[in-house]
């Protein structure tokens, strides 16, 4: 699509570049395939809104961080690169944290330490090491957006199911009717499964998503 628009000039959206964004969404998803970045994420997926905010924060941090690291890649001495990377991420995360505290204070409180934990999110360091240190800024940007979006996609899926089944809401709006007044589905005897809101169900939901993905794409199946 964008391929045709840019074909005369530099192919900014060449097939390879689009692949950088598209591959990590499903086939090479950072969470379900590369096993990166599960740490800071699952605890906040009890609500869809928190998941979306978290996904957006990670997209910002990873895209900007990838570009910065890619620009600095020839200046950073290899022996101290981990600390240099951590400083770049920490600075970006402070920006995100202060922005969230300013504009969505109640949500920022709910996310509590998990915004700070974006710093040690393995996706960030993993992509810095694997991609940004060896590629130009534009490609790094696309790679960052793609990987963070793949991560965000999983967060949003988990958040969707947990909020829908756990409290019968999406983004805080009741979907199945009112559980107190017994309208909608609740009139037929439907009950919310409060267990979905507890921590263990996030893990089990993610396990089921991984199983589903592998049943569609057999090449991902591991040997035990």
């Amino acid at each position, binding site marked *: 699509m964008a391929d045709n628009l840019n074909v005369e000039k530099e192919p900014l959206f060449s097939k390879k570049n689009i692949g950088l964004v598209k591959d990590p969404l499903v086939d090479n998803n950072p969470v379900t395939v590369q096993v990166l970045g*599960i*740490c800071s994420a699952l605890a906040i997926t009890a609500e869809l809104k928190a998941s979306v905010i978290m996904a957006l924060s990670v997209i910002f941090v990873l895209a900007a961080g990838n570009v910065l690291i890619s620009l600095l890649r020839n200046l950073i001495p290899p022996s101290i690169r*981990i600390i240099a990377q951590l400083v770049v991420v920490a600075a970006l995360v*402070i920006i995100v944290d202060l922005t969230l505290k300013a504009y969505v204070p109640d949500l920022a409180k709910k996310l509590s330490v998990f915004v700070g934990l974006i710093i040690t999110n*393995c996706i960030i360091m993993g992509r810095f090491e694997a991609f940004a240190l060896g590629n130009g800024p534009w490609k790094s940007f696309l790679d960052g957006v793609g990987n963070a979006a793949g991560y965000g996609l999983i967060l949003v899926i988990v958040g969707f199911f947990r909020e829908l089944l756990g409290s019968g809401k999406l983004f805080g709006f009741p979907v199945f009717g009112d559980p*107190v007044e017994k309208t909608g589905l609740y009139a037929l005897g439907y009950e919310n499964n*409060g267990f979905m809101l507890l921590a263990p169900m996030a*893990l089990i939901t*993610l*396990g089921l998503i991984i199983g589903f993905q592998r049943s569609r794409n057999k090449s991902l199946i591991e040997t035990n």
Partner: protein
Amino acid sequence: MELLELFLKSIFIENMIFATFLGMCSYLAVSKKVSTAVGLGAAVIFVQVITVPLNYLLDKYILRPGALTWLGEEYAEYDLSFLTFILFIATVATMVQLVEMVVEKFAPALYNSLGIFLPLIAVNCAILGGSLFMQQKDFATITEATVYGLGSGIGWFLAILAIGAIREKIRYSNVPPVFRGLGMTFILTGLMAIGFMSFGGMLTGGSDAPKKEVVENVAPAVTEEVNEVATDSTALETKTDSLTQTVQE
């Protein structure tokens, strides 16, 4: 007594892996064999015991609003808490590097057994998470912070040891192909987390035991709900909400 309570609480009830999902990456990557799992677990305890008290001091004397009073009255207004992340992660990274050098010099055997896990720990969420939770919990003394660090490290160690043992055994079971490896590990961790939730009722003493209250309340709410579906589904919902909150906190 309070210290013991804090210690047990940080191991079992607020377990890093099962209640807050911290350090999941290395937990999943390094738990294929018990021997490596033990190595990483030991390294996490080690670093946690060092960094949590250190970050406690940083927080108390530099970061908190008004923490700089010891420099003089004119600094009492300063609030450097926005620097928390960068200072904490710098502490963690330098401490890991330092610990690595010290261990290499004075205990080569331990160094060899920990191997590549020590440098990996700098980016383990459990370490930074421990420090951030420590800041959030607002401990009164450095002893409490140290005990919390030790407890959360041991909790992480137990979790990775348990999953390592299960994964070694599960190789002989017939897992459905799509769940082999990662999928099954997640589901197992979820089941273990459900098991660990039962520790929520363990600490009944202490001055404030909100856990006990919540756990007691959920059970009657559930039974009532079966008898009478009219009013208490909201009660159940608010209770599960508060339970989730306490679990996450």
